[in-house]
């Protein structure tokens, strides 16, 4: 690693909200979540879609947790633990891609609207207003159903709506940066518009983008779970929402099969809450006045 790259990494670590105990807990949860997702194939032990039978070809349905099946089995004889681990994988995919898309679209729109002003600003901001008018869940259901309900289309549909918050915040930030003397200095020393926008302004709004990205991760995972739970999701992919839906449809709740529906539920709550904890930690670094 070159010294400058190491310096950059050091600065990134220094930027993590390590002082805040809640954010630290969030980071720990995230770290575990990402590790599980990356090592899903090793950790899962079994194929999450495989249906298991005993030696007598009887369905191994509704087994309680045990040494063989860590979290027991579903009513269809599938391994809950393997599903949970693979669910982490799809949650990570959904969260990260949605966050990247949301931050990408939102930041670009915010930068252009704030810096160009005038007609560009008006057009982009009215577009943002329209995005604010879209009812989120129905829109995602309709779009993903229309395109074909796979994981990517769900993510795409979410990103098409969620960029609106980022765009507004970034635009406001750009407006205030544009009035700063160092931006005028860049102009006075002959920087081009492109250079001012991407070299001088963009790096200064990036922390804010990261904050909104970390919030978008939680939203995306939550939304994907809701969609799957409602049965509009990708039936070919194991996700936590799908597990909940499966459990619900099999009346696991009324039958008290807690080892089936509790793990995915807890996993969703943990990961989403961890995202918000980290976001809050960042927020306090960005806006120290929020500290009560």
């Amino acid at each position: 690693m070159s010294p400058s790259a190491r310096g950059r990494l050091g600065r990134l670590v220094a930027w993590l909200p390590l002082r805040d105990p809640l954010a630290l807990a969030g980071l720990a949860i995230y770290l575990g979540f990402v590790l599980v997702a990356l090592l899903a194939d090793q950790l899962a032990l079994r194929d999450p879609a495989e249906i298991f039978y005993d030696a007598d070809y009887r369905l191994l349905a509704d087994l309680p947790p045990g040494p063989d099946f860590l979290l027991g089995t579903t009513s269809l004889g599938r391994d809950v633990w393997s599903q949970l681990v693979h669910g982490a994988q799809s949650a990570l995919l959904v969260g990260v891609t949605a966050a990247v898309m949301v931050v990408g679209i939102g930041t670009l729109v915010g930068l252009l609207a704030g810096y160009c002003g005038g007609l560009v600003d008006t057009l982009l901001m009215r577009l943002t207003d329209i995005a604010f008018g879209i009812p989120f869940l129905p829109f995602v259901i309709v779009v993903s159903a229309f395109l074909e309900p796979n994981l990517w289309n769900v993510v795409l549909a979410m990103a098409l709506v969620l960029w609106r918050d980022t765009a507004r915040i970034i635009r406001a930030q750009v407006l205030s940066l544009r009035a700063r003397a160092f931006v005028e200095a860049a102009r006075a020393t002959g920087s081009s518009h492109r250079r001012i926008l991407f070299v001088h302004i963009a790096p200064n709004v990036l922390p804010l983008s990261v904050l909104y990205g970390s919030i978008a991760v939680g939203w995306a995972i939550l939304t994907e779970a809701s969609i799957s739970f409602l049965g509009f999701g990708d039936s070919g992919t194991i996700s936590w929402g799908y597990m909940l839906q499966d459990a619900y449809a099999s009346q696991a709740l009324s039958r008290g099969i807690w080892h089936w529906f509790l793990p995915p539920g807890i996993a969703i709550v943990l990961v989403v809450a961890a995202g918000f904890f980290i976001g809050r930690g960042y927020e306090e670094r960005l806006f120290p006045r929020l500290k009560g």
Partner: protein
Amino acid sequence: MKAETPFVVVEHLAKHYRGPGGWRGAGRLLRAVDDVSFTLAPGESVGLLGESGSGKTTLGRLLLKLTEPTAGSITIAGQSLAGLRGQPLKAFRRQAQLIFQNPFDALNPRFTIGRCLREPLLNAGLPRAEQGPLIERALALARFTRGLELLDQHPHQLSGGQLQRVVIARALILQPRFVVADEPVSMLDVSVRAGILNLLRGVSRALGLTAVYISHDLSLVRYLCSRTLVLYRGALVEDAPTKALCNAPRHPYSQALVAAVPSSDPAQRRLPLPLVASTAEAPVGSGCRFAARCPLVMPICRTEEPPLVAVAPNHRVACHLGLPAA
């Protein structure tokens, strides 16, 4: 006027802004700069003096083509600024530089000092080999002795005085011939102001810069500038050698400005200001814009705007009192 070819020629310059209007019509017209004409000789240091809202900052921005005039023209080194774009505009930006009021805001907080200084060089497209000597030269001009460790620091690690010297170094790095400094010390602490003023005076003399110092502080202008332009609500009301302005101001507004400078001399102390207490400002366009506050106001002042006329060599005043009775 001097026989020398002027370096900056400003003719009938105006910048009007329209205030926010409702949906029923346009907003109020604000004449930030209104029909201002003057010339600057090469190597001259000139003060732009005025209160807040006098249009002095707008005039400075117009001179650097950071904003476009509503009317009138600016010619710098024989080149008109109107319609300047592309390569000629880049060439102009190399020649004309701005020194900022607030050094805490004038440097990109994410850049190192070295990067801040290199930025103008990159914009000018200078090869890397030429950059080093230019940076060293600029740092020496700004009186930095331990420049190299400075280059790796970020703006927040420097004191206000050091930051302002970096801002000055950045402005000088492309070896400009023309510099506009907007209130260069007003954000600085008392003990570092003197250093910056000494630096600015020394550098502009040593490099023969044509310099415009924008300030509301007459004593500062007195220290830096041989000539002063007094602006009042967008108009040039007096243009005089600074010494003459301080000793014998002609325009009643300049007289009030000079009288308002706190004096430690007990004899001059606590004389009443030669001003009429008035909060009502007459609308621009109907007579002299100072009439409402002027202690020497005459009937003609309320109906006719006085032209800027020479009352002595290198001394122009816009006041009916200085004119022979019509």
